[in-house]
C-alpha cells in the first residue's frame, strides 16, 4: 500500500494458506510489501526480533495464539501502528471484540480491493 509516497509494510497474520496467498497478491496490487505469520505467536515473535510493520492484518481464529490475544500483546508491547482485524465470523461481534483488544478496525474476509482502499484511507487519516 502506498500512503502518499511512502511504501507501506504489512504483516498478514493468518493461518489459512489460501487467504494468505490471496491477501498477499491483493496487497501487491496496491504496491505493498507484505510478510506472513501463521499465527499470533509468530507475529509477536517477529516484532520481538525487531521487525517493523506499518499495518497488521490480524485473523481472529488461529492456533497457538489467536488474533485477539496477539492484538492485546502487540499493544502491550507498545506497537502503535494500524491493526486491522479480519474475520469470517459475525462481523458485529468481531468488530466489538477486536476494538476491545486494541485494533483500529475490522473487516470481513477475504479482503477486497474496496476494503484495502478503506484501510489505506484509515492509515492516511492517522
Amino acid at each position: 500500500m502506498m500512503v502518499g509516497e511512502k511504501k507501506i509494510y504489512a504483516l498478514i497474520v493468518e493461518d489459512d494458506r489460501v487467504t494468505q496467498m490471496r491477501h498477499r497478491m491483493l496487497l501487491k496490487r496496491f504496491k505493498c510489501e507484505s510478510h506472513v505469520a501463521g499465527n499470533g505467536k509468530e507475529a509477536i515473535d517477529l516484532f520481538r526480533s525487531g521487525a517493523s510493520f506499518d499495518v497488521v492484518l490480524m485473523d481472529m481464529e488461529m492456533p497457538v495464539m489467536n488474533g485477539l490475544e496477539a492484538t492485546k500483546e502487540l499493544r502491550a508491547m507498545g506497537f502503535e501502528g494500524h491493526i486491522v482485524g479480519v474475520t469470517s465470523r459475525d462481523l458485529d461481534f468481531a468488530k466489538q471484540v477486536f476494538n476491545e483488544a486494541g485494533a483500529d478496525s475490522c473487516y470481513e474476509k477475504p479482503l477486497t480491493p474496496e476494503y484495502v482502499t478503506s484501510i489505506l484511507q484509515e492509515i492516511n487519516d492517522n
Partner: protein
Amino acid sequence: MAGKDLNQKLNELISSLQDQGILDDYFDELKGLQDEQSPQFVTNTITIYLGGADDTIAELTKNLSEPAVNYPRVTYLADKLKGSSMSIGGARMADVCAELCEASEANKREACLALFGGVNREYSILQESLNKIAQLEQAIHDNKD
C-alpha cells in the same frame, strides 16, 4: 485461435458455476489478481485450497466419528474450511461450513453429522469444478509458451 477457444471455454465454465452458486464474485476477484509475474496464481491457489481442504475434511471425519465429539475443534476446523472456501470463491461450500460451525458451537451432534454430509457433497462438486478450471488455466498457460 486455440487460446481464444480455451479462454472462452474457461469463461463459460466459470459463468455456469456462478449461475449454480458453486462459485461467487470472490472467484472473479481472485482471478483478477493473476498477472504476468504470477501467471499460474489461480492454479497454484486451487492446488493449495484442495490440499488444505482434504486435510481439514479428514480431520473433521475423525473428530465427528469419536464417541465424544471435540466440539471446539470441530468449530475451529469448520470455520477454517469456511474461510478458505470463501477465499477461493466457493460460495455453497462456505455456506454449508458456516452451518456446520453453528451446529458445532451448539454441541448438536446429529445436526453436525447431517451437515458434514452436506460439506462432503459440496466439496465433491467444488473439487471437480476447481480441477476443471485448473486444467483449462494450465492449458491456456501452456498454449502461451
